[in-house]
């Protein structure tokens, strides 16, 4: 099922959690909503699920208005951040819940319910836990039971709120791979919320980067990593070196020194120069105006890492770059810096 979100606004008091958000999720997509806390990603997920209501805007499933439907009528499977398993029910009854509360006219008989629950527990590979209570399970097991419970109602869309947030690193890695293969197997349109870029880039086939109630960029994982469209995305995803610069009709200055790099023609004003750390290299002085003083050098294994102080009008900036071992650096040495690739974004006023 495809999902369209149009012009959604949601305010909590004066705080705009979502500020005119538009989003289209094609059928079969595995999409990540990525952003720092407070960016509105969970609110957007809850609005799609029907657990929150927008102040204005539309949500449509396959072109049909979804806002007029109660959460239970949207056939949405929702996996909560802390799983929200029913604590007084066994694993089996948790998974069976969605089937048991169906209206009598469409409810399956007991044997069919049992068969379906068994099938789901097999799918998440936890059928041996069916008579346990949630408090007797590990975090990873609870997560998978929560998923099985959400899948029981044969949802047309699966929504997961920070699905791996509360798990330790090892279990998290296993579950990521597992979620990907599960998605390939059942191919239901899925959206998950995360603040972990690695998780988003690794699991999803499309990533939505959000900040302060806005969508900053939508694209494939490699797209948002290699071609960030905004300063926020460049800074949030991957490691970046950021230098404050002045742009004057396409010419770039650091302090009073003109730099041998170009910004977009016609752009002016205070901006930020973004360079991936692995794209910044040491060059002889005098290359193109960008220079810095070596502050501290540390070596480990094949890597030599240096803190380099770059001064400009708006104070000193310390950047950290990797230098090959054969290039010897001394504290206090002035070196030239050459970005292989870079992006310049004007400061938002």
């Amino acid at each position, binding site marked *: 099922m495809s999902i369209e979100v149009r012009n959604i606004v949601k305010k909590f008091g004066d705080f705009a959690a979502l500020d005119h958000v538009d989003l289209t999720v094609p059928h079969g997509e595995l999409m990540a909503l990525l952003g720092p806390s407070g960016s509105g990603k969970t609110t957007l997920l809850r609005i799609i699920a029907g657990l929150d209501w927008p102040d204005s805007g539309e949500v449509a499933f396959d072109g049909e208005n979804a806002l007029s439907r*109660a959460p239970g009528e949207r056939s*949405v499977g929702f996996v909560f951040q*802390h799983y929200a398993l029913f604590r007084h029910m066994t694993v089996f009854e948790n998974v069976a819940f969605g089937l048991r509360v169906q209206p009598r006219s469409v409810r399956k008989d007991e044997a069919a319910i049992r068969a379906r629950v068994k099938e789901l527990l097999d799918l998440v590979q936890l059928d041996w836990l069916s008579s346990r209570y949630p408090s007797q399970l590990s975090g990873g097991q609870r997560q998978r039971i929560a998923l099985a419970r959400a899948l029981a109602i044969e949802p047309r869309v699966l929504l997961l709120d920070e699905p791996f947030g509360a798990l330790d690193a090892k279990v998290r890695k296993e579950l990521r791979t597992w979620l990907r293969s599960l998605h390939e197997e059942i191919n239901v349109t899925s959206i998950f919320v995360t603040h972990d870029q690695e998780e988003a880039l690794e699991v999803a086939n499309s990533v939505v980067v959000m900040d302060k109630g806005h969508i900053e960029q939508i694209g494939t994982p490699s797209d948002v990593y290699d071609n960030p469209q905004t300063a926020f995305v460049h800074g949030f995803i991957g490691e970046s070196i950021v230098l404050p610069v002045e742009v004057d009709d396409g010419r770039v200055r650091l302090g009073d020194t003109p730099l041998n790099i170009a910004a977009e023609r016609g752009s002016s004003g205070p901006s930020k120069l973004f360079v991936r750390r692995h794209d910044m290299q040491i060059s002889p002085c005098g290359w193109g105006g960008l220079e810095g003083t070596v502050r501290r050098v540390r070596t480990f294994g094949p890597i030599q890492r240096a803190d380099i102080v770059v001064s400009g009008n708006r104070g000193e900036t310390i950047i950290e770059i990797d230098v090959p071992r054969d290039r010897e650096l001394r504290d206090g040495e002035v070196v030239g810096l050459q970005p292989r690739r870079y992006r310049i974004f004007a400061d938002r006023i």
Partner: protein
Amino acid sequence: MPETAIAVPLERTDARSEPRWVRGLLIGFTILFLTVFIVLPLVIVFAEAFARGAHAYLAALADPEALSAIKLTLIVAVISVGLNLVFGLVAAWAIAKFEFPGKTLLISLVDLPFSVSPVISGLVFVLLFGAQGFLGPWLQDHDIQLLFALPGIALATTFVTFPFVSRALIPLMQEQGTAEEEAALSLGASGLQTFFRVTLPNIKWGLLYGVLLCNARAMGEFGAVSVVSGHIRGETNTMPLLVEILYNEYQFVSAFAIASLLALLALVTLVAKTILERHLDEGQRPSEH
């Protein structure tokens, strides 16, 4: 040398525990206090009740006045516990699961009956419904008897015991949050199904706990009931009121026989409370973390 260090007998093995005599003193003092102030009175109640033998005891309980008092007490308890079960559940639900303006005020209001002297609570109803009261003339015109009758007694008791159920439920429901209800809704459950299948089972021990304490207080309430009852013998006397009347009339065996029933109620409540608290501790173990 290490050998000498080992050879020294250690008087206190654990630096965190008190010396033995301090422990002994504390435990001894506690036991003495409990004996004098709680066990002894309890024993005396039963001793006095059976002072002239089991026959006199049973005869005292079989007295029409006593039977009427027991019956009235039970009826009042059923009414006020029933009302407070519903009110308490609704209030706790509203406070724990929703955000609305004036919530803090509502929480304080719920606790009000605990901070007001029961006699004052009773007086409030007299001022409201009495012959010279605010609504008294209207009630008289319509021939409705509230005071000095069952409705007044039930009202006063309900007022005094109002906080028990909601107080037992509010922290429990707040701690459990709304995630499980949301999960149930998203799985297609209706509001009623969510309540009976998810919310109620999660709070059932807390609810029973509140009902138990509410019942104990409803049956034992004296002050508020004393003001509104009118002490009509065989009609508006509850058990605690009858105990006082009988005692003042020097009918010690009868007074203590009724009192022994109230004491028994207290003991049963105590045992049930302990059992419920054990269930509550288990049920409260959160499923997350």
